[in-house]
């Protein structure tokens, strides 16, 4: 019987692929850039010629690239031709470096500036790859990979650059790298080209040319000696009920969003970012102008309730008319209480002329007294359902005090996660801190849903996490009454929430709460879900 070994890494792509291992040794010229110099003028010219040459290669690759790859190549070209980078390199040449040494020195300076930020280090890696190409162009050494034209090969390398991905032959059906991350330009291009990839696979050097391997990106693994029956299918949700467990609303920031939301079968608008409707205006819109714009928007919105968030300055400092009275306080009153009162009264006007059900909510509320001030104001102006965003950790404990006063809340999970991190409940060193699968966030969400349910307050989530279909099931299981997703995700989230029963959603939520890290929470929840999807 054949030996089967599993190598772990981070998968890129959704499709499994079987192929023959083809290992490549990267012979980059940067191991010893020539330090010989032919004088400042010569070296400066050599550098400029080499940059121009690599730049024209990038331009040629752009011609045949599809859109995602083209964007990457354009970004690379702009990095290569960065004025400050070239100036630094030319200064190094003045100090006696050769052209290739000088370019590497400039790249290293950027690397030191951005270290240890993991995403920016990927850009530094891109730059190093470009420096390899530049050094190759200076010395005349070929830097391209030499690959067979035929076969079904899984390329195994220490790392791979976006430029090398563009030069792969049709024989390459998959890529495994020892280093690199899932957000590298190379990974973005592989995803766009439908070439499955496993990155950060520390055991990659153990693979030998000629071995057959199953690349299984969905399971973050490669299986040596594996066959397609071991492939892990990406989770796709089959709706088994006519309607989702909880209503799925849409987040809206423009007229176009509103039309998309209606097309997506969203139940209503769960978050209208009102300030974004006035991005083009340099002056404060009058009450009548606002009322007209809101009415236009309401006409395009899906049939259900429309949740209007009052002007949020944390998102929109460029709007001069909102920034006039700014202080450093975080409060819904920041644009000026009188301005918000005017906005609410223009909403009444639009509500009356459109006949729509309007809910209003305030951003940046950090305690019960701020919430009560907003409730008092909104109640004095019109007949709305009144709510607040929960995006500041200190508000959570105060929610119970708002029983009987507050109609609804909507959680902004991104800001709440940031707020939890600032209060030291999370380790800022944890690289997965930005994931909505963070145990600290999930336990805060459980607490919020529990308090709201006891206090008779409608609870929703409008943050990015609600656009993740699997996570929307967790939210339903935790007891939230609605979610609001970006219009493009409404269909997926609806399908997910129509594929499980209420008790199954509770089990998925319970599984997610057992994790000690974001990764664990996600794995546990997805495993539980996979069992239900049959």
């Amino acid at each position, binding site marked *: 019987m054949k030996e089967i070994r599993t190598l772990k890494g981070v998968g890129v792509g959704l499709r499994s692929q079987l192929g023959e291992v083809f290992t490549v040794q990267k012979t980059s010229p940067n191991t010893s850039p020539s330090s010989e110099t032919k004088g400042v003028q010569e070296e400066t010219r050599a550098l400029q010629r080499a940059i121009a040459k690599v730049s024209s290669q990038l331009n040629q690759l752009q011609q045949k690239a599809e859109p995602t790859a083209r964007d990457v190549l354009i970004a690379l070209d*702009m990095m290569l031709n960065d004025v400050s980078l070239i100036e630094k390199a030319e200064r190094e040449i003045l100090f006696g470096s050769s052209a290739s040494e000088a370019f590497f020195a400039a790249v290293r300076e950027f690397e030191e500036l951005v270290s240890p930020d993991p995403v920016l280090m990927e850009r530094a890696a891109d*730059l190093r790859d470009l420096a390899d190409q530049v050094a190759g162009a200076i010395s005349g050494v070929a830097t391209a990979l030499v690959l067979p034209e035929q076969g079904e090969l899984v390329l195994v390398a220490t790392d791979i650059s976006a430029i090398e991905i563009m030069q792969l032959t049709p024989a390459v059906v998959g890529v495994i790298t020892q280093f690199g991350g899932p957000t590298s330009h190379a990974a973005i291009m592989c995803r766009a080209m439908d070439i499955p990839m496993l990155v950060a696979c520390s055991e990659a050097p153990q693979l030998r040319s000629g071995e057959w391997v199953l690349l299984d990106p969905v399971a973050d693994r490669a299986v040596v000696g594996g066959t397609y029956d071991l492939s892990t299918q990406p989770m796709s949700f089959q709706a088994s009920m006519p309607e989702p467990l909880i209503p799925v609303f849409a987040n809206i920031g423009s007229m176009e969003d509103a039309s998309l939301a209606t097309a997506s079968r969203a139940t209503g608008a769960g978050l209208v970012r009102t300030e974004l409707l006035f991005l*083009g205006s340099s002056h404060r819109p009058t009450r009548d102008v606002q009322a007209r714009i809101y009415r236009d928007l309401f006409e395009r919105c899906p049939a259900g309730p429309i949740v209007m968030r009052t002007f949020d300055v944390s998102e929109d400092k460029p709007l001069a008319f909102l920034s006039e009275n700014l202080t450093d306080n975080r409060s819904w009153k920041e644009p000026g209480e009188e301005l918000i009162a005017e906005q609410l009264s223009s909403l009444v006007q639009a509500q009356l002329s459109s006949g729509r059900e309007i809910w209003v909510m305030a951003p940046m509320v950090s305690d019960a007294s701020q919430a009560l001030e907003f409730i008092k104001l909104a109640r004095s102006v019109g007949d709305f359902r009144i709510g607040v965003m929960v995006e500041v950790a200190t508000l959570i404990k105060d929610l119970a005090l708002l029983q009987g006063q507050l109609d609804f809340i909507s959680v902004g999970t991104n*800001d709440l996660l940031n707020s939890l991190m600032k209060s030291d409940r999370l380790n800022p060193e944890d690289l997965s801190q930005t994931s909505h699968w963070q145990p600290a966030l999930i336990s805060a969400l459980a607490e919020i849903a529990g308090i709201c349910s006891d206090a008779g307050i409608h609870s929703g989530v409008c943050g990015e996490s609600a656009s993740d279909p699997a996570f929307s099931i967790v939210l339903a299981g935790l007891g939230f009454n609605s979610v609001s997703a970006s219009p493009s995700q409404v269909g997926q989230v609806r399908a997910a929430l129509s594929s499980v029963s209420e008790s199954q959603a509770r089990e998925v939520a319970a599984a997610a709460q057992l994790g000690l890290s974001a990764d664990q929470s996600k794995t546990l929840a997805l495993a539980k879900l996979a069992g239900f999807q049959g």
Partner: protein
Amino acid sequence: MFVGQVSIQDPLGLHARPAGEIVRLSRELGIAIRLGRPGAALVSANGPLALLALKLKTGDHVTVEIESSDSEQVTQVMARLQEILKG
């Protein structure tokens, strides 16, 4: 010269593509644009790397200087910048 503020709304922070778009905007209009954290030194948007090195993350506020006294143009540039930073 105009001084204003924008914020990073892109969930990935300020990454390579939007940084490149800002550089292109500055080049196409022939107007110097400078960005930086409020209160700190600003960097010129003449190349993407200096912008990336600001390490701007989602929710960060950014001070913007635009070398233009044409208020209509400034408004357009600011709107475009905020659009780019939305991701």
